[in-house]
């Protein structure tokens, strides 16, 4: 009986999704996209009012009123997507980036997206790349998540995404890890354990904060039982937004952090 299964598995189609069709994909992640040409000042104001976190806000900069969209705070509720200038993003490139690059500014008066300063490459990422080549060990750390992010991180090992194909493994001990993938807003009760786990990872090390809670505290940001987002407790190198981020977003983020050459294949 079991031989039948193995035979069938060998005959069944390969489910592996090629990396080029995963990078930047965000479908199912419910992150917003702003079409700035349709944006009005009034719409920007309504969107900010609808937003349950502070992912959408109005900011004054250089005597202009700008709409600020912080993906790090967005829980993907989809409320703003009811407005004309907003839709659900099919693609999202700000995965595995600095905190500044999670934020976009839009000028409703001029219908333009305002440029923000670009990233400075992280030294640790380059060092790990030169040391390890294509191998990377990830230790996932739940600092107080709702387990939504865990469900999606677990999916990275299924036959569709198969993270192992990039030489990336999940390891059991922080002492074996190059990268800490931290989910959740850090609760008071976890703060000590999070610090100790970070200290147990040998240098050079990278820390990636995952999900709205990990990036900003998300919907739990104001809770007295929460110490803060991950970067309030340990140093963070890069951020992957989402609530929860889809496997494609996670994979994009992890590969982006490594600045691994992933040239499109045939």
């Amino acid at each position, binding site marked *: *009986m*079991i031989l039948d*299964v*193995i035979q069938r*598995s060998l005959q069944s189609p390969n*489910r592996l999704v090629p990396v080029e069709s995963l990078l930047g994909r965000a*479908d*199912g992640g*419910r992150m917003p996209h702003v079409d700035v040409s349709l944006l009005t000042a009034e719409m920007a104001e309504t969107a900010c009012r609808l937003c*349950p976190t502070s992912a959408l806000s109005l900011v004054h900069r250089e005597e202009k009123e700008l709409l600020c969209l912080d993906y790090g705070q967005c*829980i*993907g*509720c*989809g409320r703003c997507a009811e407005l004309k200038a907003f839709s*659900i993003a099919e693609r999202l490139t700000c995965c595995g980036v600095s905190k500044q690059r999670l934020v976009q500014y839009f000028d409703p008066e001029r219908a333009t997206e305002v440029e923000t300063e670009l990233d400075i490459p992280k030294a640790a990422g380059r060092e790990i790349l030169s040391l390890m080549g294509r191998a990377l060990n990830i230790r*996932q*750390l*739940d*600092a*107080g*998540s*709702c*387990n*939504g*992010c*865990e*469900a*999606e*991180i*677990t*999916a990275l*090992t*299924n*036959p*569709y995404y198969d993270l192992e194909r990039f030489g990336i493994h*999940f390891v*059991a*001990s*922080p002492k074996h890890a190059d990268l800490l993938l931290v989910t*959740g*807003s850090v*609760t*008071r*009760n*976890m*703060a*000590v*354990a999070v610090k100790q*786990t970070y200290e147990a990872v040998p240098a050079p090390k990278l820390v990636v904060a995952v999900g709205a*809670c990990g990036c900003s505290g*998300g*919907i*739990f940001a*104001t*809770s*007295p*039982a*929460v110490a803060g987002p991950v970067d309030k407790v340990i140093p963070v190198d890069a951020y992957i937004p989402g*609530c*929860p981020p889809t496997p494609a977003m996670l994979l994009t983020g992890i590969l982006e952090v490594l600045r691994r050459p992933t040239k499109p294949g045939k």
Partner: protein
Amino acid sequence: MDPMPGENATTPTVVEVARLLQGPPENRARLVSLFGSIDSSLKRTMVHYILDVPGAGYRVLEDMMNGSVPSITPVSPAAAWYERELKDQYGVELFGHPDPRSLLLHENWPGNCHPMVDSTQAVPWADEHYEFLQVEGDGVCEVAVGPVHAGIIEPGHFRFSVVGDNVLFLELRHFYTHKGTERLFQGTPVSSGQMLAESVSGDNCFAHAVAYCQAIEEAHAVTAPPLAQLVRLIGLELERMVAHIADVGALSGDIAFMLPAAYCSRIKEDLLQTSVRVIGSRFWRGIAVPGGVTRDISPSAAEMLREAVMQASGEFAKMAAIMLDRPSVQSRFEAAGVLHHSVAGDLAVVGPVARASGIDADIRRDHPYGAYRGLNFEIPSLHYGDVLARTRVRIDEVACSAQLILDALTQLQAGPIRTEVPQDVAFEGFSAIESPRGELLYWVKGEAGMLTRCHIKSPSFQNWPALPHAVVGNVIADFPLINKSFNLSYSGCDR
């Protein structure tokens, strides 16, 4: 059992609660939940008991808290954690509780700060003391595991007392992911509460959102339109399928039988990807809202879902049969981690764990809600109480859920998907649903579109205290397997 300790410490309500909770198992009430609230108009603190009384349905009893609460734990051990939570949240003394140590609030929380009543502005970091229970005797060793575990798992602490490989005693210390969710609900607009509910336990997020929305609807005496109820049923059963398929795969993975594990992870992913195409979200987030749902299922999406569900349940059934047929699986699963029927009853265990220990209970049938009203469907139950029974119950439930989805898909008809929830009234009410892990209840109170209290009875909070009873007597190496067969949510418990 002992009567209430200290006759003068008790109140008529507590006497009545204790009376209902005692007696032969088939006649006594089941403790559903126990929690506090503040009655702001009368400036008093209340304690609420929700019981499931045989033949009479849910019954809510209320009592005033006067600084101390007579404990009902000596009568019903199922109340132990609820009362400890009450003490942490409201700072009341428990009278006659066998173990009044703090539960939610760890050493870092000052002993005199109780988040539901005291100011939580800049709570200082404290260094309180927590005493673990100790087993003494020749050759007894302690093995401490967690909070950070070796894998993609949520945090929690397990302290085993072992002699050799045999577990003599297991103490759980959880609430590492305690996020003060019930405190955050206070002052949240009714229209946003489901977002917080979705983040109580991410893998059962739709169940939490629906339970919250139903409680709001119940409290406002409105009903979601029939189409919305059907969409909710489809989402709930799909979530159950996904959860159980993932659990069975993970159980196989835990005994290093990787083929079914890989298969199940693939089938689960198929269903999640279908969810994106059908409803726009992998876990049905943002779909349930008070008064209904935000999205309909189009005829073409329904057809897509029908095909995916048929294929998934067919493939899963085949794989599960192969798995259970392996002698290596049987030898690990059978007789491992037995939770006895009487212990399960005393601890008021719910969901697949209860149904594997001979407790034939399912909220969908016993307290039908939404589109489950009037439905007649099979509820698998076994009496062995071991890992194998818990696996088999889940396998059978996948087939039942698939059938429920297929039936519901044929009934989809165009219509409204949302009812208006009145904004300007005071409200109070609750609703329970059968989540993949068992009975999940939301109790809400508020006024003018704002919540003043929301209590979550989570099945994991109820079931965690039963786990040590299933683990004691087994070898420590079987713990991950037994734990997985319960598959309880840490975040759902800790909130």
